């Protein structure tokens, strides 16, 4: 089974790497953090805690926050086309009439979506870092009025590392929403539209809820941790909410959401009659 899934994953990547939309998406994702950094610094100016120049981690938090948002949407588009695209074109017939099980095909697609999501995450992470380090400076965060070190270099980089790790699983979960929607409908156009609307609507509705209730949504955590990082890099005194940090909510909520998304997606795929 592992060999079959491995071969199917290779086939998925052959398709992905030949898909022109991937390269357009990478172009957008390469520019999104830069646009965000430039816009943020243009709109809000230099923070008073920063000595001489912008702090690279501060710029990174600007760029990565919106770059990650763009990567989430790109990931949603690809994952919602994963199955629906095959139904749309009829190529699912080609796959399911090969010596593979439906479980093999499902696992291969889920693994490919997760691998693509991870790749996009790393891509945006590196793009944000390159811009942040190119424009800003690394080092401690200074209070320029009092010539005091507000944040030690080690503390701020450790905080940034943790913020990046905390944002990963919530980000990846969005891709699995795409996989669930992709199995609902046989049209890739509808699948992409439904997945984007569900995600953006869910995000918007979550924003209207009290803070404690917002923590039940996986989409809450990415912006939350990166806003905290920005605030920390600007010398703010805010730290993680204990429930989120020590209670591992940033892991538990996405994992519970995955547990809610994947079984119905698998069941839909497993029992579907292929007419188209």
């Amino acid at each position, binding site marked *: 089974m592992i060999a079959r899934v491995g071969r199917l994953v290779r*086939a998925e990547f*052959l398709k992905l790497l030949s898909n022109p939309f991937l390269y357009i998406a990478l172009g957008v994702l390469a520019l999104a953090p830069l646009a965000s950094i430039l816009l943020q610094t243009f709109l809000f100016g230099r923070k008073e805690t920063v000595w001489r120049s912008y702090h690279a981690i501060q710029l990174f938090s600007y760029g990565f926050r919106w770059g990650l948002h763009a990567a989430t949407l790109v990931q949603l588009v690809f994952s919602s086309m994963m199955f629906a695209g095959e139904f749309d074109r*009829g*190529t699912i017939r080609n796959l399911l009439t090969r010596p*593979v099980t439906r479980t093999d095909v499902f696992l291969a697609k889920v693994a490919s979506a997760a691998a693509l999501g991870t790749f996009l995450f790393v891509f945006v992470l590196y793009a944000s870092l390159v811009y942040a380090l190119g424009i800003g400076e690394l080092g401690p965060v200074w209070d320029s009025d009092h010539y005091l070190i507000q944040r030690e270099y080690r503390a701020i980089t450790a905080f940034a590392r943790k913020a990046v790790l905390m944002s990963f699983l919530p980000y990846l979960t969005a891709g699995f929403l795409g996989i669930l929607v992709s199995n609902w409908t046989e049209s890739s156009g509808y699948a992409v539209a439904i997945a984007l609307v569900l995600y953006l609507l869910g995000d918007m509705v979550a924003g209207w809820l009290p803070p404690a209730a917002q923590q039940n949504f996986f989409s809450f955590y990415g912006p939350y941790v990166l806003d905290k990082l920005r605030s920390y890099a600007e010398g703010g005194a805010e730290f993680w909410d204990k429930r989120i940090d020590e209670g591992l909510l940033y892991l538990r909520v996405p994992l519970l959401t995955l547990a809610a998304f994947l079984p119905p997606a698998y069941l839909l795929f497993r029992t579907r009659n292929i007419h188209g």
Partner: protein
Amino acid sequence: MTAILRTEGLTRHFGRLRAVEDVDLVVEEGDIYGFLGLNGAGKSTTIRLILRLIRPTRGRVLIFGRDTRTDFLGIMRQVGSLVELPAYYPYLSAWKNLEVLRLATGGIPPSRIEEVLRLVGLGDRMHDRVGTYSQGMRQRLGIAMALLPRPRLVILDEPTNGLDPHGVSHIRGVLQALNREGVTFLISSHLLHEVEITCNRVGIIKEGRLILQDTVAGILSRTTSGLSVRGDPPARAREVLAAQPWIRGVTEDGQGGIRVECDPGDFARVNAVLHEAGVAVRELSPVRRTLEEFFLSQ
């Protein structure tokens, strides 16, 4: 002969619609089996049931004597198929489309891709994007996909759709050559003349039920519907034959001959009565219907 594909009571209902009902299809090793039926008769649903793209309401499918429910993977290593229109990734070349399927199948050397593309006549365009192909080229690609794993059994749904006469002839030649090498085919088609000259056995499905299954020769021999007679004087010949109570009908064929409707066992009697009546018989030949005429009469 061994049955390479056998369905037993294969049935599929969609709500009240009985799409396929108790179909007992038998494709023997070495057959080119033509599967005929009008649009909506249940051909494609039967093929999807055979390939487990659709789950049956009841019944089972045996391929190479093994049940597809319990040994699907083992069976599908030796089965190639083209279901309805060929499906492909338009942004990939033909070569890459087959590479995707080669990876999905496993155990096929990469050199097989070029081999099979050349076989169906796509050798010169194999690295072009399929999105730029004509309909006929896409159809050839679909056939190449079916032939990729060197299958023992190939199931083709309308394989010559969209091909020009040269393409039809080429693909027919490819299928017949593979058949001589031992590959068995189940071909669903609307091109009855094509089926008549390509297939050795035929099954006809109507409203979800398999109403007939026989060799093409057997069907055609059963469809003999009378005699074409030319004799002198023609008027006398017609008068004599019309007077025979065992002859069901006598009509002029518009070309100076007479069409006589009677049982094949009475053909010799026709000759005898004409001879006794002094009619000089110049021609006496059985009239056979084509597979198309037979199919349309069902």
